[in-house]
Structure formats: structure tokens, C-alpha cells
């Protein structure tokens, strides 16, 4: 009952975020959208678990939170340094800007 | 010493998450903890970073409660911004000095800044953070300084 409402809300939110994911325009918007999507998923798993009456699947929620985190960091690492495992990039001096 | 505390923490986590208290599972738990300790020990040896945890638990809890309140307040503020027809955004990128001694403390501060909607720590530099705010007002600097003090207060005294 109440869970249905929560599920609906989260789904709507996910759809909105999906739009942002598709639209962009920058890379970072998309990364943010993906990360946000992941958080929504974690919540959704939790709520759906409760709704189904079998909330002992929260392992999956934790898994997804972990994946979300690792994935976001990986994406950023890729696109900032364009390869994993490169020597850590040090930014140029701040005053020069880019 | 640290190792034992860490092991106990992991053990508690295992037991809490597991819910099954058969001997075979417990023994697996112990073995798992052993393996984890091995790997983390190797990791510690490999890099120069050690993250000493020098916090006072009780004060930290107190801080957390205060933080929750702050989060609630900022949430409402940003929600107003989102939902209002004009979306009054005044972005700003500015420096915020920190006073924590330990790395962990600094991180707690930085993350707290980010946790409260309206401010995000963007870069960490020597002595200060670069912070971005979405609807900046002069009062923000004071609020942040307040947060800084509270975090420092949770740190244990010790050598830098």
C-alpha cells in the first residue's frame, strides 16, 4: 500500500533522471545521472523487498550501492585520466586555470 | 592493537549482517576475517597512507546528531529552490579553511560539507577546501566555520 506509493515515486524519479542521462549535455551530467540512478535503485530494491514481503534481499541493495560507488569512481578515473592505473594526475597550478 | 579492534569490528559486522549462528558459518566468518586482515595488512605495507583513526567515539556520535539536523535544514532550503518558479541560484566557488589535524578528520569535514545539500566540496588543497554553493549567501561561511569547529572537536588530542 504505502510501499506502492514509494515505488511509484522512485520510479518517476528514475525516469526523470533517465531523461537527464540521455540529454547530457556534458559528460559529467551523465555521470551524475548514473550515480543518482544507482542510489534510486538501492532504495527501490529496499522498498520492493518490503512490498513483496521478503525484505531479506537487502544484500542486493548493499551490493548495488557498492557497485554504484566503484562504478562512478571508475568512470571518472577513465575520463579524467583516460586510462585506469595511470600515474595519478596532478593538476596544473590553480592560478593558470585551463 | 589496531588490528584487534579492526578484527572485532569486522566480526561484529559479520554477525550482524549474517543472522545465522551455526558453528560452520562462524568458523567461515573467522576465516574470512583472517583473510581480510591479511589483505589489508599487505595494502598498508604497500602504500604510505595509513589512516589513523583518532576520534573520540562519543563526541563523534554527538556530532552526527547535529549533522542530521543540519542536513534536514539544508534539504528544505534546497527543495525550496528547486520547486520555486524562479529558481534563485547564485553559484559560487570559494575557499574554506579547515582546522582538523588528522586526514580522517578533514575527510569527515569535507564529506559533511557535501552531505548537506547546498554545498559541495570540490577540491582538497593544503589548508583549505574549494567549495561550491548553489545559492550562496554570506551566512554560509559562518555556518561552515561552525561545522569545522565541531569536527575538530571530535578529534582526539595528539601530536600532529
Amino acid at each position, binding site marked *: 500500500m504505502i510501499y506502492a506509493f514509494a515505488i511509484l515515486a522512485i*520510479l518517476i524519479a528514475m525516469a526523470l533522471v533517465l531523461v537527464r542521462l*540521455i540529454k547530457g549535455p556534458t559528460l559529467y551530467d551523465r*555521470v551524475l545521472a548514473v550515480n543518482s540512478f544507482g542510489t534510486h535503485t538501492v532504495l527501490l530494491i529496499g522498498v520492493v523487498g518490503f512490498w*513483496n514481503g521478503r525484505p531479506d534481499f537487502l544484500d542486493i541493495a548493499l*551490493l548495488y550501492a557498492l557497485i554504484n560507488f566503484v562504478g562512478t569512481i571508475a568512470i571518472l578515473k577513465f575520463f579524467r585520466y583516460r586510462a585506469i592505473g595511470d600515474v595519478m594526475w596532478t593538476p596544473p597550478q590553480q592560478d593558470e586555470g585551463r | 592493537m589496531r588490528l584487534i579492534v579492526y578484527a572485532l569490528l569486522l566480526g561484529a559486522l559479520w554477525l550482524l549482517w549474517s543472522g545465522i549462528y551455526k558453528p560452520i558459518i562462524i568458523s567461515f566468518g573467522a576465516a574470512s576475517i583472517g583473510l581480510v586482515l591479511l589483505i589489508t595488512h599487505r595494502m598498508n605495507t604497500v602504500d604510505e597512507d595509513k589512516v589513523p583513526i583518532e576520534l573520540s567515539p562519543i563526541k563523534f556520535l554527538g556530532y552526527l546528531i547535529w549533522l542530521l539536523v543540519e542536513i534536514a535544514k539544508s534539504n528544505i532550503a534546497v527543495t525550496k529552490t528547486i520547486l520555486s518558479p524562479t529558481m534563485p541560484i547564485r553559484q559560487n566557488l570559494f575557499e574554506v579553511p579547515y582546522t582538523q589535524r588528522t586526514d580522517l578528520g578533514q575527510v569527515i569535514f569535507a564529506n559533511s560539507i557535501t552531505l548537506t545539500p547546498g554545498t559541495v566540496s570540490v577540491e582538497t588543497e593544503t589548508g583549505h577546501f574549494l567549495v561550491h554553493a548553489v545559492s550562496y549567501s554570506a551566512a554560509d561561511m559562518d555556518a561552515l566555520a561552525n561545522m569545522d569547529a565541531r569536527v575538530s572537536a571530535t578529534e582526539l588530542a595528539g601530536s600532529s
Partner: protein
Amino acid sequence: MLVITALAVVRTRSLFAVVTLSGVFSLLSALLFITLDAVDVAFTEAAVGAGISTVLMLGTLALTSRSERSEKKTPIVPLLVVLVTGAAMVYGTLDMPNFGSPDAPAQTHVGPEYFERIPKEIDVPNAVTAILASYRGYDTLGETAVVFTAGIGVLMLMSGLGRRRKEDEDDPDQEGGSA
């Protein structure tokens, strides 16, 4: 949402977007699996599909290119193929039992028998693991071999040195950027 994601993949040119959409697709399917009571599968799909798969693809993109540069080909043949295949599948579904019906052949034959036998023979709560690791354990051994094969396959394919930027003088894409 799943359909939108899939269609977006067709149209988007930015490969980064495509890959993240793929991750999203996996994610949504994991959710779908949960609603279909397939929790083990959802777990695996989330870990593998949304996690590993997306990360690997991003790694590939980082080493290759960022957007699609297709020429305009007429999509007639692929569309035809797809339509025919789809039609064949729909044809096949016509005699299928309704979704979720409990007296489908799938539910009345081997399925319930597993339920009867697992408590007696294996005594493990997770039926999926029981079947996976015991009754059909040989399949799982094969699956492990597949993973093994992919692992050493990737090692074999990628074990050479990648080109270091500085050595790569004649690559036209190359810029003398710093690492």
C-alpha cells in the same frame, strides 16, 4: 523504461552515453528480475551487468574512441531480419501458457520435483544454489571454465605492451598530451 533505454542505445551517437545506457539497462533488468522473484539472478545481473560490464566497456572506450561515426547504410536488410525473427518468436509464443500460470509444463514437471527433493537430499534453503551447485553442478563447472577461458583469453589478447604515448610518433590521432 527498458524499451526507452534500448531505443536510446540505437539512436545515440555518443558511445559514452551508449555504455552508460547499457549499464542502466542492466540495472533495470536486475530490478525486473527482483519483481519476477529471481533474486539470485538479480544479484548476479547487478554485479555483472551493471558493474563489471559497464566498467569494462568504459575502459574500452577510453582506449578507443568516444563517439560513433557510422556511414549511412540502408537498414532494410537488418530490419527485415529482425522482423522475421521477431515474428517467428511471436509465433512461438502463441502456444505458450499464460504468464505465471501454475500449470504450465515448466512448473509441473521438473520444477516441483526439485522442491520435494531438496529438503531431503541437500537440506539447503537456497534452492537455486542447491540446483546450481549440486543437481546441475556440472553446468556450473562448465560455466567456471567459461570464465577461466575468458580470463586467459583476455590475457592472451592484451598481454603485449600497449603503446606508450611518447613512442607513438606516427599515430595521427596522437597528441603530445601529458599522461
